[in-house]
């Protein structure tokens, strides 16, 4: 295979053009007659279909999007065994061939972009632009890690002396378990899976129970592109299937993106050694993401960026903003404008162009956010909410801005994962940094400020994995904003970055003596 061209991000759809919007609508028309999808337990060449798990449209819970089988513990064992067999073959496939297959999978997705976006709209209530962006990100991950694996296979240079040849290379680790969330229902499972596969591991994917249909498409894309059936299996299900997979002694690497409590339980379970190895966990967990607004900020930029960071996709991104720490000199003006901007947000069905806030993923999520909203009203003050005209069907929550909350309020310290934003007044930027310092999360953060000295100071002190200056804090792009958090937000790995594949390999060094009879031969 010839060298791959330089990586470029897949261009997201130019939805400002009516023709592009029409293509997406045509994708929906093509998808709808195929629903509900039947999602199998898919191990090697064997498919078992059964209607055990139902995924529905969050905007219309009567609409069934996918009917999925649920993997049993025996099936989890089967999947890991298949993956062990698959590993032997896949790890020996030349890296250029593996890269080629991943690039084929990217092409498969590319040729079905509109239908896949439509599936995300239906199954996860991703608004069109977000859904299309997610499919593009999945394509990016495939293209990016394919290139990364080829580069990694060249190894790293070592010092050499006469009579000795030193080489360092990276070998795949073995079976990789991928446990993925529903909020980026194709991109995140594809990203973790593609990284594992690119590096030569075999993968067993357990997608979120809320988005089995999207998870199925991930595996389908990879298999259609040429990944051997034993090298990629799908075990849909709920928590038990995931737990069985994590605990399986045949698993070497666990790549997880999801909530903090589940992540910590995975890290604990993975402390137990595997058959002959230590398990490694790559985990991306929650956040409590703060945007600092300094007194010199341009509020014309800050307000729309804050509102989009907090409310796009109903705040259900791990990168979403949940706190604004505003310098006291501009706090009142900022709060008034943010509140006014929230009052005109368009809450509606994900399949409608131009909506800002879709429903949240499920009833539990709706109830959770409502609890925090009620708490925010009791402990502080609701500065704005967009409550009127909410569809009465579907898991809608009014986008809300709260303020005047006590420092120890759960609203300020726990991950809510919904359209609720807290605004706080601080003396200055340093006071804001003190509050950020108190958090156990460190995923994303934002800063609106036009003084280069202050920017420098915040960059030094803010512990977050991704800091955004004078722009929204969501929307990380593969290769441009390698993504991942620190502290309890994650293991500090950066998806879509130059170091990510290193977590899926083990380094090996070979030193060969080239001296024979006193001569260097």
């Amino acid at each position, binding site marked *: 295979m010839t060298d791959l061209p330089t990586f470029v991000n897949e*261009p997201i759809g130019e939805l400002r053009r009516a023709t592009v919007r029409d293509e997406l609508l045509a994708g929906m028309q093509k998808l709808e007659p195929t629903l509900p999808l039947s999602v199998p337990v898919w191990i090697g060449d064997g498919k078992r279909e059964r209607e055990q798990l139902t995924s529905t449209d969050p905007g219309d819970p009567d609409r069934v999007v996918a009917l999925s089988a649920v993997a049993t513990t025996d099936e989890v064992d089967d999947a890991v065994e298949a993956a062990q067999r698959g590993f032997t073959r896949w790890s020996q496939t030349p890296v250029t061939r593996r890269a080629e297959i991943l690039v084929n999978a990217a092409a498969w997705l590319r040729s079905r972009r509109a239908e896949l976006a439509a599936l995300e709209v239906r199954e996860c209530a991703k608004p069109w632009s977000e859904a299309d962006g997610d499919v593009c990100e999945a394509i990016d991950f495939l293209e990016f890690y394919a290139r990364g694996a080829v580069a990694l296979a060249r190894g790293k240079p070592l010092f050499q002396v006469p009579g000795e040849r030193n080489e360092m290379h990276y070998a795949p680790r073995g079976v990789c378990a991928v446990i993925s969330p529903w909020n980026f229902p194709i991109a995140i499972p594809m990203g973790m899976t593609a990284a594992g596969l690119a590096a030569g591991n075999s993968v067993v994917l357990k997608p979120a129970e809320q988005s089995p249909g999207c998870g199925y498409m991930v595996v389908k894309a990879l298999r259609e592109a040429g990944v051997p059936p034993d090298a990629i299996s799908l075990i849909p299900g709920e928590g038990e299937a995931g737990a069985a997979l994590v605990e399986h002694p045949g698993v070497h690497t666990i790549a997880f993106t999801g909530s903090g409590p589940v992540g910590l339980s995975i890290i604990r379970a993975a402390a137990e050694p595997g058959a002959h190895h230590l398990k490694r966990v790559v985990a991306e967990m929650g956040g409590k993401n703060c945007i600092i607004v300094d*007194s010199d*900020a*341009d*509020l014309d930029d800050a*307000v729309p960026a804050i509102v989009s960071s907090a409310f796009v996709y109903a705040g259900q991104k791990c990168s979403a903003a949940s706190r604004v720490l505003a310098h006291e000199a501009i706090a009142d003006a900022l709060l008034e404008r943010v509140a*006014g901007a929230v009052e005109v947000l*368009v809450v509606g069905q994900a399949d409608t*162009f131009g909506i800002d806030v879709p429903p949240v993923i499920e009833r539990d999520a709706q109830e959770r956010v409502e609890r925090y909203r009620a708490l925010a009203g009791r402990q502080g003050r609701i500065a704005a909410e967009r409550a009127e005209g909410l569809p009465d069907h579907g898991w809608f929550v009014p986008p809300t801005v709260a303020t005047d909350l006590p420092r120890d309020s759960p609203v300020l310290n726990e991950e809510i994962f919904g359209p609720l934003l807290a605004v706080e007044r601080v003396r200055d930027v340093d006071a804001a940094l003190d509050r950020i310092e108190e958090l156990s999360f460190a995923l994303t953060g934002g800063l609106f400020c036009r003084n280069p000295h202050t920017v420098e100071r915040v960059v030094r002190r803010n512990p977050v994995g991704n800091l955004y200056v004078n722009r929204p804090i969501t929307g990380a792009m593969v290769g441009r904003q390698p993504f991942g958090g620190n502290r309890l937000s994650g293991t500090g790995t950066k998806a879509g970055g130059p170091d990510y594949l290193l977590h899926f390999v083990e380094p090996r060094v070979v030193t060969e003596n080239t001296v024979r009879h006193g001569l260097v031969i």
Partner: protein
Amino acid sequence: MLAIGRDLAAALPGSSRNPIKAIDDKAMDLASQDAELRAALFRFVDVVPACRSLDDLASHLSGFLDEVGDRPPPLQVAMRMSESKAGRTALGAAAAAGVKHMAHRFIVGETPREATGVLEDLWRRGVATSVDLLGEATVTRAEADRYAARCREALDGLVDVYRRLPERPNLEHDSSGRIPRENLSVKVSALTPLLRPDAPELGKRDAAGRLRDLLGRARDLDAHLHIDMESFDSREAVTELVLELLSEPEFQDGPSAGIVLQAYLRDSPELCDRIIAWAHATPRAYPLLVRLVKGAYWDHEIVEARQHGWQSPVFEVKADSDRNFEALTRRLLEARPSVRVAVASHNLRSIAHALAANRAMGGEDGDVEIQVLRGLGDDLQQALATRGLRVRTYCPVGDLVAGMAYLVRRLLENTSNESFLHEQAAGRPLDELLAAP
């Protein structure tokens, strides 16, 4: 065409009054030559209104200058001043005064009332105006209502200003009839917080109420209302909104109203056809005034397209825009009397071309309006007025906070090496400047 161009050039005031040379702040000259310095200067200008004190101002200035590798001597002095409190206060005061001074070249007053003197003076010198109300971005309903209210007041205020002024026949009539003296330019993005690139209907619906009200007011006062065009993101919404509202029977007899066509857009010829077809099919007492511009959001469009991996909606080579401008000029002139044509440019070649094309079609000079920007086109405005042509100067009104986005845009234009004014200032021979793009 060459003859017209040379004649206008001859009517320009002495080269010492050229806008670029005349900007007394030497920083602008320096900025044109040094990209780093230009970035530092513009970032500073941009933040001035948000600074809370002179000390704060100086701290920002030194922060930006820190990032400039090669500092000319005056800036080294500035850096040394920023090391002491007293120095910072002095530096801050000097810098603030400089920026304010710069702003006053481009912005005629903080309020329409304050601008009265300038508007009167221009009229007496044979120059019409279009007033534009600068404002902060509209992100809330209250802000949209406030902007609409300011526009209403401005319309009333303009009537007060202009009714006292003497007759200027060439500014008030063309062969289609009367041209209102009072002329206000408004922005749809300020009339609604709901402009969404992927849902033009949404912003259109929300802005329609406020714009309809303004159109009604303009009709009652017999003033002209011009709807500006902004970035490509809102192009569909703005175009459809304007054409739909002006199709309503209540606006058939007025007001005089207009739309903007941006020649830097690759698809502007299609839009031009659409506008002309609409104008032919929609008879109005006042023909639709089409203001032809190159377009002011070029950098924004290019950056946006690059960041998303899109083909840019604008021509990337300036000569392509210039050529398209001339083609569109001819199309619009041919579409009279269904439309009126305003050619908005500081490019002598583009203007001479429009006047020559009009004459070649047998049109009167008075049937082409030339529009320029306050602060950038002052000399040209003078030359056009001297030759008895109808020139209208776009006059922004607003405070420094609101005006900053506009000011930075103008400064960028002023220091761009590609701009006509820059080439003219650099002493490029007239015949080269007048050559076909």
